[in-house]
């Protein structure tokens, strides 16, 4: 018997026939086609019961109500909360993308200690004893005032708890990052007396004269501004936007009035001059040299003079002033962009004076001079001798920018320890190199950041904060809003990582310090503290999720003190040299301060703003001699130099270069950082005398072909 070819053929055919009349072929064809549709690495999200929970977003001072959709208790989407008194269902892209912050690649996952150039994770016990030990040394050395605080949150009990800690410790050195809220408070203090702030009733005004206020760029409480702006068309109200660039606000406005950067104060005073000259103003309780002011502005800010400075035609200035005076419910709004950085008191005061002259103080649709009565009722702090001594001391300097300069200028450490909470000064303040240098001059920096951002990297210990989705906190609305609403941020998930509410971290620290500091923070948890100090509004907060603290026009008309403007303070000029002027642009799609943007937010940014890893600057084609649209160029200022791409934009004043804020982060998140340059690296601060505000609205620059 011989096995030959045919045997094999038989074997093959038999096998084939056998398979063919079995179900293998049919079944495998079907299964393999299904297999190609179901890769094991394609995620299959788990289904389950849908529920909604309300909370308040605390990413910015806007404090919008949010509704978190959960599937089987797992948050899957953030949406605006309907009928919430701030945002009524509206929500910005940062809030919607909020869940991305939970799993941000740059999150600090546990307490960290810097060892050489690297951070190493440590336990909370180790971290607390390390920090409390260092602080005890500072205090025992007899210089408790050398503990400093830089915070970014204007209100709320966590910031108040930080201040209380410093009080009990014996240090007055509490510094806030520049904010619209503080700028408005300073303006109110200058014009209407200390302890006040200003709110603008945009919802009811029939003519909003905005001096560059980015009402849809993130100014004030952004979603409240959006809602008011959207309703404007239905109310037949007008928005006039005064700005060097056709921003989104200007594009959406009824009229765009281009103006040379940094001359807004001149225009505001020019309008005041017209009102005074034509006797179109409403007399009020004016003091502090009103007549002197009237004389100064009519002389120094006559329309022709203002035309020369601002570029706005004299005839237009007169018409604008008349339109403002004749409108039924006009309001003038200060604060270029988001109204936080690069502002000056002269401009804020000039714009508010326009409201005062038009009789718009505390009137519906006008500017409310409000007393932001703190709803917080902390019990008396216990103070020992060191604390009493510290309480009597003056702050080292006035503003955070001055603090940075002082730290750098002094050979001896001005601060021995520094807390940073809810702020990223090493990215956000102008001339970041200067800020990083200053941080090196502080022997012990403690960051309470949720993310390994530029400032966290410059610190010695990180006590990581839970994000707004993981913690309880009261969040009052920030600057510019005509009402005060306190919202309750509630934990939507348990902390994903080994993080704590900064309030809890602070209470642990206080207890580790012992003595009167522990007595001043004698709560077991921050949640307990909040319930106690929220006092009267706690019931509303816990039941409704918010409490409206003030609403509607305040009673009476406040007086206006003209002494500051009557002295005709000098206008701040841009520093540096060059034939062009670089100005930062606020873009709603990019966060300019802490925390940085999410991957989703960066994804929405136009390729005319960010192209690969190149930042794109805007320039009017008229100014762009020798440059190509979309081509490379080198931007040079006295602070530094950057390779940029150029975008020809007819909507920007000739001679001006616009660069977006919020790019150029340097931390470890490939979706957000390592893209473009930080405009704050290229602009140096110009401190306005008196106010201490960094008034640098831009810097002179050159732009040449790369």
């Amino acid at each position, binding site marked *: 018997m011989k096995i030959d070819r045919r045997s094999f053929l038989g074997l093959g055919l038999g096998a084939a026939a056998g398979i063919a009349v079995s179900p293998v072929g049919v079944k495998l064809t079907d299964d393999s086609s299904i297999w190609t549709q179901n890769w094991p690495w394609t995620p299959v999200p788990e289904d389950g019961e849908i529920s909604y929970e309300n909370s308040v977003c605390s990413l910015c001072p806007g404090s919008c109500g949010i509704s978190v959709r959960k599937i089987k208790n797992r948050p899957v989407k953030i949406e605006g909360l309907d009928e919430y008194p701030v945002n009524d269902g*509206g929500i*910005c892209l940062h809030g919607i993308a909020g869940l991305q912050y939970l799993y941000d690649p740059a999150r600090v996952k546990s307490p960290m200690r810097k060892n050489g150039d690297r951070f190493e994770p440590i336990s909370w016990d180790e971290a607390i004893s390390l920090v409390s030990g260092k602080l005890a040394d500072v205090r025992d050395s007899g210089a408790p005032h050398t503990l400093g605080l830089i915070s970014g949150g204007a209100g709320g009990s966590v910031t108040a708890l930080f201040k209380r800690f410093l009080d009990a410790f014996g240090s007055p050195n509490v510094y806030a990052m520049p904010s619209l809220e503080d700028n408005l408070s300073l303006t109110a203090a200058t014009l209407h007396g200390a302890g006040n702030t200003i709110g603008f009733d945009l919802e009811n005004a029939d003519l909003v004269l905005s001096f560059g206020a980015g009402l849809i760029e993130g100014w004030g409480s952004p979603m409240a501004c959006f809602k008011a702006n959207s309703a404007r068309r239905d109310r037949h109200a007008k928005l006039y936007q005064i700005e060097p660039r056709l921003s989104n*606000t200007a594009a959406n406005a009824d009229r765009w009035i281009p103006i040379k950067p940094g001359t807004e104060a001149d225009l505001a005073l020019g309008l005041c001059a017209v009102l005074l000259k034509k006797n179109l103003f409403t007399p009020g309780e004016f003091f502090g040299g009103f007549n002197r002011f009237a004389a100064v502005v009519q002389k120094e800010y006559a329309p022709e003079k203002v035309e020369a400075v601002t570029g706005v035609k004299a005839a237009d200035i007169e018409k604008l002033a008349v339109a403002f005076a004749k409108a039924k419910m006009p309001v003038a709004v200060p604060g270029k962009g988001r109204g936080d950085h690069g502002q000056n008191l002269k401009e804020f005061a000039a714009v508010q004076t326009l409201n005062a002259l038009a009789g718009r103080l505390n009137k519906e649709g006008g500017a409310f001079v409000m007393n932001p009565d703190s709803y917080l009722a902390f019990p008396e702090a216990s103070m020992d001798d060191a604390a009493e001594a510290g309480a009597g001391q003056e702050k080292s300097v006035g503003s955070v920018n001055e603090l940075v300069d002082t730290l750098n200028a002094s050979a001896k450490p001005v601060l021995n320890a520094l807390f940073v909470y809810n702020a990223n000064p090493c990215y956000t303040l102008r001339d970041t190199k200067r800020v990083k240098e200053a941080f090196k001059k502080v022997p012990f920096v403690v960051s309470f950041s949720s993310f390994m951002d530029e400032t966290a990297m410059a610190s010695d210990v990180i006590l990581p904060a839970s994000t707004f989705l993981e913690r309880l906190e009261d969040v009052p609305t920030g600057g510019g809003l005509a009402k005060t609403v306190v919202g309750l941020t509630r934990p939507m998930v348990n902390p994903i990582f080994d993080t704590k509410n900064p309030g809890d971290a602070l209470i642990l620290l206080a207890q580790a310090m012992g003595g009167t500091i522990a007595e001043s923070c004698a709560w077991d948890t921050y949640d307990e503290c909040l319930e106690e100090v929220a006092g009267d509004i706690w019931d509303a907060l816990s039941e409704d999720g918010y409490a409206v603290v003030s609403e509607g026009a305040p009673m009476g008309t406040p007086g206006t003190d003209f002494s500051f403007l009557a002295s005709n303070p000098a206008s701040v000029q841009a520093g540096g040299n060059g034939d062009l002027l670089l100005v930062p642009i606020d873009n709603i799609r990019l966060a300019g301060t802490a925390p940085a943007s999410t991957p989703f937010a960066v994804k*929405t940014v136009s390729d005319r703003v960010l192209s690969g890893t190149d930042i794109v600057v805007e320039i009017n084609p008229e100014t762009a001699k020798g440059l190509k649209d979309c081509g490379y160029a080198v931007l040079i200022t006295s602070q530094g130099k950057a390779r940029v791409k150029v975008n020809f934009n007819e909507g*920007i004043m000739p001679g001006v270069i616009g660069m977006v804020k919020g790019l150029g982060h340097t931390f470890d998140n490939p979706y957000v950082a390592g893209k473009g340059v930080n405009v704050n690296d290229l602009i140096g601060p110009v401190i306005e005398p008196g106010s201490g505000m960094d008034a640098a609205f831009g810097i002179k620059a050159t732009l040449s072909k790369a």
Partner: protein
Amino acid sequence: MIQNTKAHKFGMVIDLDKCTGCGSCMVSCMAENNVPFKEDESRKKDSITWMRVYKLTNGKSFPDTEVVYMPRPCQHCSGLGDHGHSPCVSVCPATATDYGYDTGIVSQIYTRCFGCRYCMGACPYHARYFNWWDPTWPEGMESYLSPNVSPRMRGVVEKCSFCYHRYQLAREKAYVEEREIEENEYQTACTTACPADAIIFGDLNNPAHQVHQIVKPDPHPDPRNHKVVGKSRNPKVFRLLERLGTNTKVYYMSEREWVRKAGDSYLDGEWDEVKNHHGSSSSHG
């Protein structure tokens, strides 16, 4: 074609004068529909954005420049003569996309799609996107994905679905309560997110719905161009590339003539004829 007398025709009208270009609609869409993201999203041709906001300018020089922002979801074309032959549906060799005659919504089924991208070529609005890569999320971030929309895989096309899953969810509730869904129960994620209230969504077939009242769609074919059905009788409302007869269900609205003109390209003199013509019932010629 399947006849259904009670058919919905979901559509939207976007007020370009209200739109601020803030991008909330884009992110709301991405978060709602499990749209992934990459390290570099600045190459816009491969950046998946079912809803994309375009910037239009009037082309005038400083200071007469004007800008509007135009959000662009899938336009959910009803096709020539309103028969459901959308440009993309007509060319799909895999029946991975079809026209829902009961809703007017153009579907996209990822597991059915084999990635030939004919539909992308056929779409006049660049509303379709191809997954050149498998989507990935940073560690842990997958846990925010929604089970209501299937995550996609490499090699398939995806696009806006008018948040069809929201329609499904609204209907489930209506079923158990034995009633029809209400106008406000089915709203797309972009509509609910818009802080400027610029997007209005609803049933174009339902005269009680706001979108119908604003658009006032002409049920008859345009006498000047029989391919066009559903032309708005509101002189401020227009559609993109309307004369192609794609019969989109996303309408735009603006007070400004240059904006309305930007919805199509016109030869010299053509615009003047078009601009005063608003549906067959219009008194203008």
